[in-house]
């Protein structure tokens, strides 16, 4: 009756020993840096190429200050926000959190980040583009070293030698390019492809036709001419001019563009490196101007910066501030701009040769100037959530654009009320 479970039992015993030993060897504070060092942690959501530069810069900082050890931890964007909230409320969390400016709103309301205007003196702050300093309710909560996160028109130079400057040109180029190459009755190449089912990617046309998501007081303003005309424009691109695919999400648009089956794509500054690495000869251009309104399509511009955890100890605070000053310094911003094509916030670097002359950065700057800062109020999430259903209904043809404007507004107001009860 005894079966050959000898080897299995021994394996299990070995694993048991390993388990016990391991749990003893991995105490709560791992990554021992020696007893004396002060440990600063930064949480961020940077993709890999940005991370590598950050690591390099952190290594330089640690070489300059051997008594400090800086650790960086990547967290995916949503995890960063919710993870930081949970950790900070429990009295823990990293010393520095680095991310886009829209996390400032919820963090401030929950009282988990520190005001910074008493920490950084005015002369230092004046060195930076004011768009990189995020003020909310009268206090400074985030200082950013990168400005952007903005959508631009990215075009394949082989297919589109000269980018369009107006919406009419956009349509014309699109029509020229959209073609059924293999004769199966469906287009294989499109003039333009982009993630148009997502509200964030609709903002350019909303602004181009004169609208914006909220008014000066932070209340939603979704029921506007800008929304309605913008919606109609997108529908026209799909149904009348037929220059965009019938169904496109982020990955499909990305794929079409990478395969050379789309002449243009609307995508953000995070995507340029990927296209360059894919071997495409891309150009970056500002989004076109809408002839009917004379307005340039604007996008949301968001700085990415540093905030301090409210739980930070005074000793660590001193070093965290030192670290922020270091990472915001001229040479480090220049390094990032050169390798990543991100727009720096340091005024000196913004005027420097590379940033002024590089083709991509030049066009990026123009688009940033056409854009508007991303709101930092927590209600922004409610607005995104409210836009989505009506927007997609219009795309599906089950709602008119005018109806959609009203629906979005009503739903946004309701969601905001629910959030703040």
């Amino acid at each position, binding site marked *: 009756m005894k079966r050959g479970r000898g080897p299995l039992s021994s394996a299990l015993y070995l694993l048991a020993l390993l388990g016990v030993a391991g749990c003893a060897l991995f105490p709560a504070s791992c990554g021992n840096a020696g007893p004396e060092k002060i440990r600063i942690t930064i949480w961020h959501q940077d993709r890999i190429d940005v991370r590598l530069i950050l690591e390099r810069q952190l290594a330089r900082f640690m070489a300059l200050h051997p008594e400090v050890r800086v650790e960086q931890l990547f967290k995916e964007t*949503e995890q960063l926000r*919710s993870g930081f*909230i949970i950790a900070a*409320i429990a009295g823990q969390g990293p010393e520095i959190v680095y991310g886009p400016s829209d996390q400032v709103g*919820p963090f401030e*309301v*929950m*009282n988990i980040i520190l005001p910074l205007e008493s920490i950084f003196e005015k002369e230092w702050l004046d060195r930076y583009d004011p768009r990189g300093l995020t003020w909310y309710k009268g206090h400074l909560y985030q200082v950013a070293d990168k400005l952007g996160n903005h959508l631009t028109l990215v075009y394949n130079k082989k297919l589109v030698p000269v980018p369009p400057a107006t919406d009419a040109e956009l349509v014309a180029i699109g029509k020229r390019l959209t073609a059924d190459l293999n004769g199966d009755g*469906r287009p294989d190449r499109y003039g333009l492809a982009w993630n148009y*089912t997502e509200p964030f990617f609709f903002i350019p046309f909303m602004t181009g036709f004169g609208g914006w998501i909220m008014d000066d007081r932070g209340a939603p303003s979704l029921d506007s001419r800008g929304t309605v005309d913008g919606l109609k424009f997108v529908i026209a691109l799909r149904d009348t001019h037929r220059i965009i*695919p*019938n*169904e496109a*999400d982020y*990955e*499909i648009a990305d*794929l079409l563009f990478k395969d050379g089956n789309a002449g243009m794509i609307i995508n953000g500054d995070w995507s340029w490196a990927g296209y360059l690495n894919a071997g495409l000869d891309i150009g970056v251009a500002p989004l076109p101007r809408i002839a009917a309104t004379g307005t340039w399509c604007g996008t949301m511009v968001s700085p990415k910066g540093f905030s301090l955890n409210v739980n930070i100890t005074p000793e660590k605070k001193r070093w965290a501030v030192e670290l922020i000053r270091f990472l915001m310094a001229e040479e480090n911003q220049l390094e990032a701009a050169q390798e990543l094509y991100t727009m720096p916030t340091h005024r000196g670097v913004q005027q420097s040769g590379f940033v002024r002359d590089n083709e991509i950065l030049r066009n990026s700057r123009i688009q940033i100037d056409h854009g508007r800062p991303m709101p930092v109020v*927590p209600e922004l*999430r*409610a607005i995104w*959530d409210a836009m*989505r*259903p*009506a927007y*997609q*209904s219009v795309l*599906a043809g*089950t709602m008119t654009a005018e109806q959609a404007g009203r629906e979005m507004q009503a*739903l946004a107001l*309701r*969601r905001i009320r*629910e*959030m*703040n*009860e």
Partner: protein
Amino acid sequence: MRDSQKLRQRLFVFALVAPAFVILFGVVIYPFFYNVVISLSNMNLRHIRDWRIIGFDQYVKVFTEPSQPAFYGVFLKTLIWTFVNVFFHVVIGVFLALVLNQKEIRGKWLFRAILVLPWAVPQLIVALTWRGMFNYEYGAINQILRQWFGLQGVQWLKQPLEAFMAVIITNVWLGFPFMMVIALGALQSIPRDLYEAADIDGASWLHKLTTITIPLIRPVMVPAITLGTIWTFNNLNIVWLVSNSGEPSDQTHLLVSFVYKAAFNFYRYGYGAALSMVIFAILLVFSLTFMRKSKATENVYS
């Protein structure tokens, strides 16, 4: 039994049961009661630290607040989602286990390895791959429908009903290996001579299936089905990923999507906790009824 024997038996039982339950309750009790308390509070964005108990307001909101999409519609969808999924998981799983268990089949290991793959691959990328396969223009499913069957493609992700079907199809694909493995295990517990006796009596395969196989794999399958139902009811991951957070137009949602949105998007922790308690109550009622009907807490040979 003498008293000392009884005592020894009690100690034995205690030693067997205690470690597992200590861990379980230690881990679960605090979060559970925390949630009960929060569900009676006004914890949200504005009251994240200074929340206070306000009674059953959150529960009232759960049932009466006009929501987008409508609460009862989503509840119904969740029920359909759960039952369709579990049904196909079990039927396909048991079916494949029966087929695979036959002694004439060669290369069992290869089939087993391939058929367990949907369970083994990381869910995120496979869910996104399925989403890609459902694309109207470029997706593999429509391409196959067009090229092999001459049909026009289905608008999988743009129409609510089709999108719902798409997420169900994906989840059925993901879930049948689990039931298949359970069924394979369950089949081992059936003594061969029962089948041999039935064969001698000239029983048909259907008769053997219904009088021997199905009843005898029940004790092992019932826990899997119960827990499978509970898990499927709350399985947000697949629906979220394949429908890209609820497309089209927020129609593709489960009840638990509301919990996720409330907690992660709107910071309405009180509301989320109350809804979680409601979901919990629904599942509790289901389990109690199911357990009583299948007598799963008892012993099959007794």
